[in-house]
């Protein structure tokens, strides 16, 4: 839920995708590298007619197109098979390079988790993208400060991630990831910025549900029936 405002802003204002032509070579790519945010992706794909409600109802069950982690092999509208953290930005370099080689102007948007930036491969990719000046590559970091076991600053603090990315040759902008006006403005800033650019979005895990907000115990755990009822009452 920390990522949902960012995803809504992206699909609503920037991403050029069409459920009637999901495999178009000219479509923008959205690479959800933190694959456990799959419910947010499936929800937006339903809004954009890539998925039906019945697909969402099958989430995580045998044979469902909605796999536990987003998977391009299973789901229309998904451009990457995630689940193992640290790989999405590298994949995005590949799709951004392909656009340049083919003279196509589609954009590649990659969403990273903040905990995910503990993976070394992420920094291999940050370094490679700026070296190759991939101006059609955009990163959004969901800085929700929580990872699987605990808060990021307890597990292994990543510190001032914006400065670190900047030091790797990227343009960086920090925003409140739940301020929709700021989100939309930052995505456009990324489009207008030469070279690769990253938006560090400060977010709150479980945003909108009082007992889930900023609570690491809901990172990988679904609410029980009573909790779900309470959460829906707060949200709707």
């Amino acid at each position, binding site marked *: 839920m920390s990522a949902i405002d960012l995803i809504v802003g992206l699909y609503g204002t920037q991403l050029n995708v069409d459920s009637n032509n999901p495999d178009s*070579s000219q479509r923008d790519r959205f690479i959800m590298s933190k694959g456990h945010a799959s419910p947010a992706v499936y929800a937006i794909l339903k809004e954009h007619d890539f998925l039906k409600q019945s697909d969402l109802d099958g989430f995580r069950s045998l044979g469902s197109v909605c796999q536990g982690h987003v*998977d*391009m*092999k299973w789901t229309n509208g998904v*451009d*990457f*098979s995630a*689940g*193992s953290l*640290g*790989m*999405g930005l*590298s*994949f*995005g*370099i*590949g*799709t*951004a*390079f*392909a*656009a340049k*080689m*083919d003279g196509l102007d589609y954009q590649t948007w990659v969403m990273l988790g903040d905990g995910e930036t503990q993976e*070394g*491969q992420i920094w*291999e*990719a940050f*370094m*490679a993208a700026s*070296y*190759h000046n991939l101006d059609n590559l955009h990163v959004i970091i969901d800085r929700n400060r929580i990872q699987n076991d605990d808060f990021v600053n307890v597990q292994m603090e990543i510190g001032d991630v914006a400065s670190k990315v900047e030091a790797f040759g990227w343009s960086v902008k920090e925003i409140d990831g739940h301020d929709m006006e700021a989100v939309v403005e930052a995505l456009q800033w990324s489009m207008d910025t030469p070279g690769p650019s990253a938006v560090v979005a400060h977010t709150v895990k479980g945003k909108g549900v009082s007992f889930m907000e900023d609570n690491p115990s809901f990172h990988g755990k679904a609410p029980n029936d009573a909790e779900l009822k309470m959460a829906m009452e707060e949200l709707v």
Partner: protein
Amino acid sequence: MSAPSTGGASRDGYGAALLNLADDPRVVVIEADLGKSTKSCLFRELYPERTISLGIAEQNMVLVAAGLASCGKVPFASTFAIFTERAFEQVRNGLARPGLVAHICGSHGGIHTGTDGSSAQSIEDLALYRTIPGMTVMHPSDDLSATKLTEQLLNHPNPSYTRTARNKTPRIYDEDTINSIQIGKGSVLKEGNDVAIIAIGVMVHKALEAAENLRSEGINATVVDMHTIKPLDTALLDQLANSVSGIVTVEDHSVIGGLGSAVSEYLSENNPTIIRKIGVEDRFGESGDSEELLSLVGLTVESIETAARAML
């Protein structure tokens, strides 16, 4: 069998293949610093706009290949065999699992790599990649076969791993015989009804030499270059199992999980046959020249002959 003066190492054959494939605009070459060693540098020189240098960062390289493949490119990514292993999980999760087709080449495979020492001598790569669903795994025996097999990857439906060797070995094929080589089909180099010697990579020429020596003793050996260990040519294995008294497998690779294991896995369940596996027993290598090292670990013509005699 004497070494012809022509020819090169199998890594040279890989480099030549990339040039031969360059007419297809989908072909993209990716490097992680070692292009001069893997011979992808030949492509880079002529087609810099389709060559991507990613520095010493193998994990990133594999996922860049996957991203390119998702956009219809046919990426060929190479580094030392041992360093591809650093990105094993990337090959598994980022490339093969979503069904993307890119081709990984690991050069400097095996103990034959020599003086660099054990850190550079991959003896487990074939075993690793064989476990990935849908992955094609190859290890050509000379430069000509490396060229031909790599060329056949252009429209291959699966991701692949190809191990090449650093050092030159005698040519197995010539300009005519190379034309019948095919991914997934073992090449029968010599026919005999007593024993079969199935070899791979730099050990194929030693298998042929052993077969020559055995013939002078009245022992007739079939010799197979099993350049593709996955998918394995099981029809050929059945044919061999039905016609000879035993099979010797020979590889510059751990005896755990490589060619010998693949052959044993199939035949033990489908056509039980006596098999003797010659390979690197459960140990690391060290610095030395290729022949010294092969002798050190028992990868010799004599050990093949001894194993073959024991089958009769």
